[in-house]
């Protein structure tokens, strides 16, 4: 057990810190989502120029070839410096690694570089109105027509679709095959008539995600990934990638919210109220346990090549902690925290989505119960 970073890891962190200090993107543009997104795309371009965009990507694909630990450090430092996630986050975290794992050489040549440079933005077309957690019951159809596939259906919760050039699309290519087996994984060009993007307004007032209405959209067979009928396997690669690096970014962000709250309690003198101190200490304990458990998960993957029980627990821990911290912030800060457009009111409302997005807490508990504890399914 060595809970320090190795010399190489410390060097990596220090180099990154220095770079982030010198290249910090500054304040987020307020109020305008298009401007905010453009700001995050510029941020990715700057990261890419510094060689930091595809930290976890292999060197042969233009990445830094970072180890798992370095990748965790990268996301932790990104959060710590209060920098945003890069604009093409879904491309970097999901599309890129999936294409590397399953794509043809032509697909790798064509798609990977513009992901890194954020020239082409990516979105993920998995969920549908009738298929949320039950991903295998997707209904969007892909029908072969010559060298193309013709797509009809509807997708939902598609983040960044309004800015995307490409969509990782899972569609049914065989409606007779059992649920999991009739699916295929496509790279769909979003810039075509058959794809309509409608923003979904969230309870925060923002529109981070969209609905996709797909009517007779066409995808060349060259853009099938992993072969016909293997969509489920390919999609699983993507989903596994989704959770690893991001966890380190998110846990730091929650920790920062908590530190901000400590700062507020200091300035206002409320920290001297034992009830306040007691609450904050409880949150800090959970934040620290989350950080440590995330690192334990990493040790597990390094040693055994697969995540242990820790992996399934950290998203659950993080989402409930973030909700509790922001809720308590509202209690402590008072009216300002429930005034529209205040930082804390946004955090409070945004946190409400945390236990739903990327796997609801109920589904995560099912996963823990079935796959980790081995409890029977009903």
């Amino acid at each position, binding site marked *: 057990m060595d809970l*320090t970073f190795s010399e190489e890891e410390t060097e990596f962190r220090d180099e990154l810190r220095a770079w982030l200090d010198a290249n910090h993107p500054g304040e987020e543009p307020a109020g305008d989502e298009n401007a905010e997104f453009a700001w995050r795309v510029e941020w990715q371009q700057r990261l890419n120029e510094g060689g930091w965009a595809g930290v976890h990507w292999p060197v042969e694909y233009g990445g830094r070839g970072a180890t798992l630990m370095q990748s965790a450090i990268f996301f932790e430092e990104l959060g710590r410096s209060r920098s945003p996630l890069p604009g093409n986050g879904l491309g970097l975290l999901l599309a890129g690694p999936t294409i590397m794992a399953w794509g043809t050489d032509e697909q790798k040549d064509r798609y990977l570089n513009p992901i890194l440079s954020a020239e082409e933005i990516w979105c993920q077309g998995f969920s549908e109105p009738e298929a949320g957690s039950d991903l295998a019951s997707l209904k969007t159809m892909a029908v072969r027509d010559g060298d193309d596939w013709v797509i009809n259906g509807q997708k939902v919760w598609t983040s960044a679709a309004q800015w995307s050039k490409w969509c990782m699309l899972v569609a049914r290519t065989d409606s007779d095959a059992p649920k999991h087996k009739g699916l295929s994984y496509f790279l769909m060009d979003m810039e075509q008539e058959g794809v309509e993007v409608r923003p979904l307004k969230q309870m925060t007032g923002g529109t981070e995600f969209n609905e996709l209405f797909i009517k007779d959209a066409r995808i060349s067979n060259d853009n099938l990934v992993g072969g016909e009928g293997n969509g489920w396997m390919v999609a699983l690669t993507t989903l596994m990638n989704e959770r690893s690096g991001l966890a380190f970014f998110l846990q730091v962000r929650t920790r920062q919210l908590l530190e901000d709250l400590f700062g507020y309690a200091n300035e206002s003198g409320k*920290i001297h109220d034992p009830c306040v*101190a007691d609450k904050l200490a409880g949150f800090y304990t959970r934040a620290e346990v989350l950080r440590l458990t995330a*690192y*334990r998960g*990493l040790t597990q993957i390094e040693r055994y090549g697969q995540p242990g029980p820790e992996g399934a627990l950290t998203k659950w821990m993080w989402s409930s902690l973030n909700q509790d911290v922001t809720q308590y912030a509202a209690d402590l800060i008072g009216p300002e925290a429930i005034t529209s457009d205040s930082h804390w009111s946004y955090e409070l409302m945004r946190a409400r989505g945390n236990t739903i997005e990327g796997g609801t807490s109920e589904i995560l*508990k099912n996963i823990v119960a079935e796959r*980790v504890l081995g409890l029977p399914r009903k």
Partner: protein
Amino acid sequence: MRFGFDDDQIEIQRTATALLEARSALDRVRENAEAGTDDNGLWTELCELGWPGIAISEDFGGQGFGLVELAILLEQAGRTLPAVPLLPTATAALAIQTAGSDEQKERWLPGLATGEISGAIGVAVNGRCEVAACAPTAAVAVLFDEEGGARLVDLADALVEPVDTIDPTRRYSSIEGPGVELPGDTDAAFDRAISAMSAELTGVASRATELAVAYVKDRKQFGTPVGAYQAVAHMCAGMLLGTESSRSASYHAAWAADADESKLSEAAAVAHIASVEGARDVTSACIQAHGGIGFTWEADPHWFYKRAQLDAQLLGGTSESRARLADSIADRVGAADEADED
């Protein structure tokens, strides 16, 4: 940031698990608990293996390992609840090693490290400790007080009276008597003691989770194992979360004690809070998962519930740790904010 054990540690864990599962099976725990007896044979055996002195320097007859290795043993002891004074003896020794004078170390450590004598720990208010983890034969106690000090009490000169607590798996006593201050860093001694205890609590929570999971897989109602019902399954998932939270915090605290003293104070407070709350919640859920059977004397979950309740108070409640932790973080954040303004 790597949590993996090295080969020695894996071997220690393997040995401890196998030995304690064989020698402190649940019927044996029950036998000692109901008779109010200690397992002297097992204690002798553990002493021959050097367990009480595993974290004590070889200069004083110990094994020269650290708190991580002691935590590995205590976690298994928490899983199996052997009727032996391992936690109090090892922790008293660790406190003396950390904060004792040379004379105190020479006087007490060799006996404690080899298990020739056993130790006691607890918290004293106005010089009296109401409930110390203390074998009737213990020779020396380390009592922490509210002001952050610690006294070493030679039990030959003290009034030691058995106390019946709700936890019959271990012997407890009140202690009243003169003692001498440990002159060294008693905060560091206390932090090591709560870190060690958090390892025991991790084991308690871990076994309670195992028992509940095994039971709900087996127990059928309406023709279905009750573990297939989500209300039950999610409760068990929550038990794993509580257990693993305790484990993460406890390993971190043990590591900090061995490798980075500057992190120990916060790490120990976090471990104290996470393990006490984890173990109390998890052992309570274990009884719930067993239904009516879980509330009977005949079932085993209550041993773990009771141990969790006793450990939760043995070295003071978690409110103290929460207050200390909040102070520490507030200071750190305040200092960083001031630096930003400069």
